[in-house]
């Protein structure tokens, strides 16, 4: 392995590795569905898991990496959802052409809103930023409720059901690719430096406004993509589903997974989508448990489930992965039966 790595260069090696892994994962999912291992209901569950992953990963970009807390994420999702739904309702093209265009339109329109809202909002910090984004989110919702062409308070009905597992898989992969490459680039490090110390990074010549708006816009655009998938999955859009509650739900995923860990967001999105499905009788208490999760995680484990751990195939294969090392250490300790002090 190491010899191949040296021969073709590290970057190219990881790209090839990840592409192969992605194709393999898709083949496995495809096989599971087509050979009937997953029944229809279970395979349909993959879709909400997919758009929740996109939502959580995109919110993590601003809340985790940039260190600013926006509370209007559902607003961007609704912009994307409505834009794409209005597009597919208006045009009559074959689905294979229409749906990617709709997703693109969703991403672009949410990105436009991201810039428009981000430019003024990101002049503020902390609590004020949270409140102003909450305000923008609510304004978006109120406006959608009062417009004629969005169906108003009754919602937008009869949207074609284009969302399939394949499309969701492609969108999730693209989202992860965009976020990962962004965060591993120079721009990503600039975003991280703003989280660590805004004044210091500004003093080192980083244009904080530019990078804040960049992260905010990318996050908004991805939320728009999730909105498009959501709209064409449920085939109905109700403005009341995009309120403050929805934004909080996404926040719970990010916080539980660990602020600043894409891998954590993915795990938490999967768990929090599946959990209520498995525990149907428990659904009454779901929201109470969500609230408790937020409070308890913040008090006892502010770094969330995964902390700042990032998944990397390359590191796992070469045995440098920290998570793997920890798991190995646990097994090792059990085998040798010795109590090790201090870690």
């Amino acid at each position, binding site marked *: 392995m190491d010899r191949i790595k040296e021969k073709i260069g590290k970057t190219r090696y990881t790209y090839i590795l990840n592409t192969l892994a992605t194709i393999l994962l898709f083949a496995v999912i495809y096989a599971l569905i087509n050979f009937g291992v997953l029944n229809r209901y279970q395979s349909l569950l993959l879709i909400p898991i997919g758009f929740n992953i996109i939502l959580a990963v995109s919110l993590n970009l601003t809340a985790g990496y940039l260190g600013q807390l926006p509370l209007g994420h559902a607003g961007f999702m609704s912009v994307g959802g409505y834009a794409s739904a209005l597009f597919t309702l208006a045009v009559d093209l074959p689905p294979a052409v229409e749906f990617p265009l709709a997703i693109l339109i969703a991403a672009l329109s949410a990105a436009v809103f991201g810039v428009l809202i981000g430019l003024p909002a990101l002049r503020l910090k902390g609590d004020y930023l949270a409140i102003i984004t909450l305000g923008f989110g609510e304004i978006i919702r109120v406006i959608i409720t009062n417009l004629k062409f969005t169906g108003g308070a009754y919602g937008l009905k009869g949207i074609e059901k284009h969302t399939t597992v394949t499309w969701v898989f492609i969108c999730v992969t693209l989202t992860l690719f965009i976020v990962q490459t962004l965060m591993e680039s120079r721009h990503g490090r600039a975003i991280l430096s703003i989280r660590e110390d805004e*004044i210091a990074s500004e003093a080192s010549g980083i244009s904080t406004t530019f990078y804040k708006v960049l992260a905010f816009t990318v996050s908004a655009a991805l939320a728009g993509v999730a909105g498009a998938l959501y709209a064409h999955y449920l085939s109905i859009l109700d403005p009341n589903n995009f309120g403050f509650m929805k934004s909080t739900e996404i926040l719970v995923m990010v916080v539980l997974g660990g602020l600043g860990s894409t891998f954590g967001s993915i795990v938490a999105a999967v768990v929090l989508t599946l959990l209520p499905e498995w525990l149907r009788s428990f659904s009454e208490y779901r929201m*109470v448990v969500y*609230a408790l999760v937020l409070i308890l995680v913040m*008090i006892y484990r502010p770094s969330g489930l995964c902390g700042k751990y990032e998944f990397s195939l390359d590191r796992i294969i070469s045995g440098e992965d920290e998570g793997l090392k920890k798991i190995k250490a646990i097994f090792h300790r059990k085998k040798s039966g010795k109590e090790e002090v201090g870690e």
Partner: protein
Amino acid sequence: MIFLSQIINGLQIGSIYALVALGYSMVYGIVKLLNFAHGDIIMVGSYVLWFGLSRLGLAPWLSVIISITVCSALGMLIEKVAYKPLRNSPKISLLITAIGVSYLLQNLSQLIFTPNPRMLPNFFPGYVSIGGAQFAVVTIVTIAVSVVIMIGLSVMVKNTKMGKAMRAVSENSDVAQLMGINVNNTISFTFALGSGLVAVASVLYCCSYSQIEPTMGSMLGIKAFVAAVLGGIGSLPGAMLGGIIIGIFESLTKAYISSQLADAVVFGILIIVLLIRPSGILGKSIREKV
């Protein structure tokens, strides 16, 4: 005449916002925390009132006193359990915890009281005519009670020992501690006082709107927060002024533009204020030290 009565309506809801905003402002001044759960205490206060009146059959004054006591105790409890362990953590963790507490209160009350709205009677029925115009008694009571409370609060913060301690802690809690002020007690007292004011606001709110539901607090709370920010967070006269401005704007929007757009107008005002003068109308701007 319609305009005048809309202004009076605005003053009424505005003074309720102002009472809630005072709590936000005091808490923010002292622990620099946007207490999201503050608005939901309105809901708790209303439900305690409802429970006392219609389930236990208590007299109105007794229910009001119980409601104020429960809210104050709850405010202190929330601070001790949820916020105190995080006092030295990053602000984003505190904010998320506060959202969690708000979420918890809303959902617990949905479990306990079901999401169906409940009705409460008006303690102050009837109308009086002043100068040829008809005013509901409850409107006048609301405005009068709020004015008395605001004056009392200002006197308390200026002159009493506890008030001085509160100001000292909000100025600099470390130094206040060195001067022999018990910071923990002061913070608890602030939370209790703020939540007690919210309970009063919830009584006044129930009298004029008569319908309560588990999620009623979140929008009310957010608007009160907008009022606190508008007036300048950390400033008590600012919170009162902000509350009244928000109330009047809201009632004028409802009367002349559209009742559905009222929320959007309130947030619009907030956004404009934050962009032009982030420290609010009466707030003082704090420069960040490196």
